[in-house]
């Protein structure tokens, strides 16, 4: 810690979501001395709570041409630089009998203007391409949608930032700024668990904290006109569809079904919420009902598929400075130079935007930072692949095919999760290959790799890096095994047990909104094991706040 406190950074990036991680990567690649600070864990905010949709931009084509163009450009870039995080599934925009087929024409024209390859196809062909699609559809357009795994994407950006010399601090919350006159010169941090404080100095602070950036700005004494908008989603028990399915109409609730790794997701709803709810969002029964009702319209089979979880994320919506009411809200990127805007030197805010444009946001923020620091190195994040995707996809694809037959199921799963980085996953002996998480095929080796290399302090961190506990049983079989392994690194059984207790509670949080059928049977079983057999309920709740479990 001394090491970090004694350094003087060029840039301090606040926020461990995709934007923060991308910004840290970009800064570090341009030779800036960079540190990223995050109050909890990477992807703990909106990054980890969205669709995981690799937008083609088509969704915005009619309503927001600029966003649509940004999306398709970034879409193509991500396929190249983040191939191990991306699934090139392609997507459909379907028109149902209750929808206006006229909209399709408007839609396709708008896509054309934005540079999105949108082709009208016969509904029959759509049914062949994606057998789960509602067979009653009267129109279909094929677009280059896909799926992107936000956890992997962020982890890869973090890893690359570190490879380029950046420092990373998780579980450090910004509690104040070092300020001299009208200039920000550093941040005061507090450790989420221990409460210990420290100060980090830097020439520039980039606020990339998503909706939480509102408070960060307040701490710095400036105001951003932001509105939190909650979106709820449902995760299904397995991968139901292989193409993204959208409704071809004006964007509305629950009209996107995305396949993501082993599961499928339907979402979202959209509700403005007050700021004090952003850390305590809950999915309401009404939202669950809407998601299910609308979801079945996209793919009727969803009515028969087990639901794993429901969760919600919060979009940081930003209104333009001359509209404090928030009526003219854009989903575009907002990059604020507070020196120009507020007369506050050394402070930049990058916000708005969406997961799809995280890289572009990072580029804008880093460009601005470079201008201020007088650095002239250009951005290369669109060209250089991320760690894990560091081979051209084509030749790699062929190579994979040749050797994948030899791989065991969990090795194939790990390769999917970590791309070429999976070569660092220990697989020397039977112990390394033994499965910790059977639903998601996570091996002891992969868990140890994550603990050692990917900033894992607790089970939730481990879940985000490996998918442990994300499968059918939601941690019933694997949580204790993973806790046993993590304890070796923690060397504090009391803390690990508290962590285990919190981890299962966090899993339950996503389960109770849909606690019927198998979910109720599953959680009863889990409770028998952990409380009845093990006595986990006797473990005291971790001191202070459950915040460490986020």
């Amino acid at each position, binding site marked *: 810690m001394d090491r970090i406190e004694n350094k003087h950074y060029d840039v301090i990036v606040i926020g461990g979501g995709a934007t923060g991680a991308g910004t840290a990567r970009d800064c570090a690649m341009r030779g800036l001395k960079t540190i990223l600070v995050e109050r909890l864990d990477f992807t703990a905010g909106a990054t980890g709570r969205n669709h995981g949709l690799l937008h083609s931009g088509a969704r915005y084509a009619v309503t927001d041409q600029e966003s649509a163009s940004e999306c398709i450009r970034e879409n193509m870039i991500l396929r190249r630089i983040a191939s191990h995080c991306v699934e090139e599934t392609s997507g459909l925009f379907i028109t149902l009998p209750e929808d206006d087929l006229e909209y399709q024409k408007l839609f396709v024209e708008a896509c054309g203007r934005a540079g999105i390859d949108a082709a009208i196809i016969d509904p029959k062909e759509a049914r062949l391409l994606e057998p789960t699609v509602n067979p009653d559809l009267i129109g279909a357009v094929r677009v280059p949608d896909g799926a992107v795994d936000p956890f992997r994407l962020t982890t890869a950006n973090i890893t690359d930032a570190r490879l380029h010399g950046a420092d990373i601090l998780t579980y450090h919350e910004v509690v104040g700024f070092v300020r001299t006159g009208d200039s920000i010169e550093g941040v005061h941090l507090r450790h989420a668990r221990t409460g210990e404080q420290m100060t980090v100095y830097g020439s520039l602070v980039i606020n990339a904290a998503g909706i939480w950036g509102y408070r960060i700005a307040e701490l710095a004494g400036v105001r951003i006109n932001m509105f939190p908008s909650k979106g709820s989603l449902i995760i299904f028990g397995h991968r139901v569809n292989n193409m993204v399915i959208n409704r071809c109409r004006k964007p509305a609730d629950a009209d996107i079904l995305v396949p993501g790794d082993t599961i499928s997701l339907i979402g979202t709803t959209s509700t403005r919420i007050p700021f004090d709810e952003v850390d305590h969002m809950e999915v309401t*029964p009404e939202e669950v009902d809407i998601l299910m009702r609308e979801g079945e319209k996209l793919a009727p089979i969803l009515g028969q598929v087990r639901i794993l979880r429901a969760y919600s994320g919060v979009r940081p919506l930003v209104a333009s400075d001359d509209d404090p009411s928030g009526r003219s809200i854009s989903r575009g990127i907002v990059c604020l130079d507070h020196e120009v805007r507020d007369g506050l030197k050394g402070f930049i805010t990058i916000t708005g935007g969406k997961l799809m444009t995280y890289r572009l946001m990072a580029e804008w923020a880093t460009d601005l930072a470079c201008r201020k620091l007088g650095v002239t190195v250009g951005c290369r994040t669109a060209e250089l692949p991320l760690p894990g995707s560091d081979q051209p996809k084509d030749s790699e694809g062929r190579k994979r095919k040749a050797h994948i037959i030899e791989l*065991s*199921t*969990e090795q194939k799963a790990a390769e999917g999760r970590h791309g070429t980085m999976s070569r660092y996953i220990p697989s020397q002996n*039977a*112990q390394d*290959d*033994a*499965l*910790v998480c*059977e639903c998601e095929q996570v*091996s*002891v080796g992969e868990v140890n790799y994550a603990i050692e290399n990917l900033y894992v302090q607790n089970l939730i961190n481990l879940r985000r890096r490996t998918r442990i506990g994300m499968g059918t049983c939601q941690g019933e*079989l694997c949580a*204790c*095994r993973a*806790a*046993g*392994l993590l*304890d*070796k690194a923690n060397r504090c*059984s*009391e803390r*690990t*047990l508290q962590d*285990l*207790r919190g981890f*299962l*509670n966090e899993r*339950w*949080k996503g389960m*109770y909104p849909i*606690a*019927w*059928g198998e979910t*109720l*049977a599953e*959680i*009863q*079983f889990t*409770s*028998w*094991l952990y*409380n*009845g*057999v*093990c*006595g*986990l*309920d*006797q*473990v005291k709740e971790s001191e202070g706040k459950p915040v460490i479990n986020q």
Partner: protein
Amino acid sequence: MRYDTVIIGGGLSGLMSGIALARAGQQVAIISAGQSALHFSSGSFELYGGAEHPLEGIATLPAEHPYQKLGVERVAHYAEQTQELLREAGIQTTGSTARNHYRFTPIGMVKPAWLSLADYTPLESADALPWRRVLVANLEGYLDFFPSFVSAGLARLGVESSVATISLPQLEHLRKSTTEMRATNIARILEGDVLRALAEALNERVGDAEAILMPAVVGLKSDKAMFELREQVSVPICFLPTMPASVPGVRTQLTLSSYFQQLGGAYLIGDNVVRGNFEDGRLVSVRSNNHEDVEFRADNFIIATGSFFSHGLVAETNRIVEPIFGLDVEADEQRTQWYAKDLYARQPYMSYGLRSDDRFRPMIEGRPIENLYAVGSILAGQRAIEEGTGGGVATTTALYVADLILNR
């Protein structure tokens, strides 16, 4: 097919009823949809965990609790009988109805227990252990047991421990599989020579420890291997429960079901009863998936299908039902009332179950079925985990109902 009594559900409560009835000379069939929750048993049974003297504590339970319907005297009587019947079936247990003992859990906690299988070492007190120094032993590559948590638990109670990981070449074979290093698979290998090798390894590592704590991975079909190992090792072995499937639990299940069959009972597993034929408030016969139009007729029926895990109760999106007969269920109406948001808080769904009269006869539209009885965890009003009453409710209600049937 015609029986004196047909029991639906082959877990602890169904088997105890079946054994009591069959040994009294009845023709009994048990129809079970697969194996039971005994497979996850800790290997200890609880009568009431909320007080040192369970029978005293029972009086404080709410009026709708199955124990209150039985009354303390009957609970005591059938609890005693449970231990006798288990012994008769070939299951040795220690413990008494008068006073709880304690057991150590796989994560190092201490929990109260009524009866413990011979594998376990019953502890006299929750805050003092009989050892000063122990060895915590695990098998290499076995992930469902947590030596460091056990050590921490021991340390909390002032007991020193060291951890040993035992590797046996004979288990390498099993470790080749990425998933099958499970307690029950290990137990299938730990016999004869392999068991002797384990004993040697333990003896080598034991040092000055007074006891060895290790996962219960010995003795799947009988407790023979478990006793053999104890004989071969120089200090006492205290086995601890593991994550599923539980070796002592599977053994209990197999021992009880084979004893039931020895008594002439028909144990039909892997079948689902799908509906019943009622005449004048009586259940005349039931129909199952496997046997289709060959129906099961009987004078009396017992439903012992368990709670949600065993599908004795099913939660639909907006209501909770008993899926076979559509019996009346005690449950909250709104989905949002079924659960608490904190996993460790009191969960309302846990106490849901069948509404029944004072003789545990479930009802349809408020009217009890004359010859149908409900036993075990499907009964409403219990909070098995929170109260520590699961095993006791299962066996005492089962034996009481068997008596009711025999005395009709």
